[in-house]
């Protein structure tokens, strides 16, 4: 199976975020990491390849810094990578990102395309499904299991409140992968070494420009949300905090 995995680089979970001067995005000087559901998408692609053979290709869009997530994918076992490299990709809406990916892979045939089910930064939860529509492929979302079948694949969709559903699908198909589908592997030292010699194709914005449109939605303002609930801050030394909490638990919450 030939599998494409779409990976995004996002600010690290614990990174303190600061707004830029125009208040439309964050300042870029934070640490970044691989978007968590995308890490699971990559893991699942590598496992499918180990079972059925084939090739795993990782793709991302973003400035030079985002090459790091491709290096990580290659070190973990992806065979090659595609980097749509430009600062402009950071501000793309999901529609344009999907269009850019579709244009970058137009000469290739993948059996499966994986994305994480949503990103930790925008959280659109749309890029994978839009890509499926642009390519004319069937799709399924929030996937927790993938088995090869005679006619294609059988996937397990996660539904709300602990429900699931199996779905049979033909190939090629696009799947958005849920965190926790399997256990993530670490890159080995050998893997990291080998990654240096694996092919990484760079695609400039100009090469996909003709496939793009204007963004169809625009962030007018980014801001720290206003608190609506009255919260009492409990502070002091750890011992004082413990005493204050127990006082509240006894007299206000009445559980002690």
């Amino acid at each position, binding site marked *: 199976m030939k599998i494409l995995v779409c990976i995004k680089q996002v600010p690290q979970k614990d990174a303190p975020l600061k707004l830029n001067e125009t208040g439309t995005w964050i300042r870029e000087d934070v640490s970044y990491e691989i978007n968590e559901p995308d890490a699971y998408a990559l893991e699942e692609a590598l496992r499918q390849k180990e079972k059925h053979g084939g090739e795993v290709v990782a793709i991302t869009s973003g400035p030079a810094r985002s090459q790091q997530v491709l290096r990580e994918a290659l070190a973990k076992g992806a065979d090659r990578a595609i980097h749509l490299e430009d600062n402009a990709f950071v501000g793309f809406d999901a529609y344009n990102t999907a269009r850019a990916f579709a244009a970058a892979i137009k000469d290739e045939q993948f059996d499966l395309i994986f994305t994480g089910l949503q990103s930790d930064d925008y959280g659109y939860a749309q890029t994978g499904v839009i890509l499926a*529509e642009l390519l004319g492929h069937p799709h399924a979302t929030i996937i927790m299991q993938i088995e090869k079948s005679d006619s294609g694949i059988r996937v397990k969709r996660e539904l709300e409140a602990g429900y699931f559903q199996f*779905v049979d699908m033909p190939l090629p198909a696009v799947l958005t992968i849920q965190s926790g589908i399997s256990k993530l592997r670490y890159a080995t030292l050998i893997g990291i070494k080998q990654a240096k010699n694996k092919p990484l194709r760079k695609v400039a914005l100009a090469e996909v420009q003709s496939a793009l449109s204007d963004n169809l939605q625009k962030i007018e303002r980014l801001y720290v*949300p206003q608190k609506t*609930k009255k919260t009492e801050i409990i502070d002091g030394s750890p011992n004082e905090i413990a005493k204050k909490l127990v006082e509240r638990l006894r007299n206000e919450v009445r559980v002690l």
Partner: protein
Amino acid sequence: MKILVVVEQREGKLNRVSWETIAAGQALAADTGGTLEAAVVGAGVSGYAAEIAAKKLAKVYAIESAGLEPYTPDAFVHALKGFIATNQPALVMMPHTYQVRDFVPKLATAAGSTCISDCIGYKKDGDKLLFTRQMFQGKLAADVSFTGAGPWFVTFQNGAFRGDKAEAGAAAAPVEVVNVEIPAGVVRNQPHEVFKEAKQAVDLTQAEIIVAVGRGIKEEKNIAIAKALAEALGGDLAASRPICDNGWLPMDRQIGSSGQTVAPKLYLALGISGAIQHIVGMKGARTIIAVNKDAEAPIFEIADYAVVGNLFDIVPPLIEEVKKAKAANS
């Protein structure tokens, strides 16, 4: 402006979140001087249409086809794309459910447009409509506008509007049945029955006191201190999803949209950031205490008591104080 709300029915029931979307649509229609219509999609859905028609709506459509049951994204997009092309709403609103997330990006793309997903509200800025959504897992918020021509699609987060505020109409709204055909070959996925994993061993829905751990606990062995706190309080231990994904606690202790929904007297969240998928499972708690080292963590938005600090410093003395208090009681 013509506004269309597409409500959700599943397994023989109208999803209650649909009332929230109707309430949102009524508010938007009032603010923009628009008209509001609603649609329900599926096989044999006229009963749902009648139920919705009791609300203040200009019209309700039952979009019918045997090919719409069971749900598939292909059939839903086929039916709705055709309906929207004829009906020509300027704005299409839906709840941000797992089912809607599954088809709405495809529908918007097929309609040559876009969806602002998972919104928590809207604003009017002059003539411009802005939709507010969470960014960075709730750490920031953004006001987002549409820049292209319609039809515009918006989905609203569960809990963004109050379903009980959906206004009833003076008289039942007219219902029109729209029969659609789903030609062979359109539907490519074959869904099987919906099921629940083997019965859960732990039922937290009745728990009065819950101590929940998140990724801030850092390592599996540290779960022991949360467990000790839960035991001291006489409560149950629960977790955010990543803890269960890692196998540090079993899945049936997961709280949130894909886990259990709880409403204890006390929910003590240790090292949980407060992503919406977690919050939906515990916001009904009577009292929420959050311990988090990040003062900006979204969990503090809904906490009654906030402790900004390192849980490893705070939990051990808290266990001691709780034990002392209990001993004094007895």
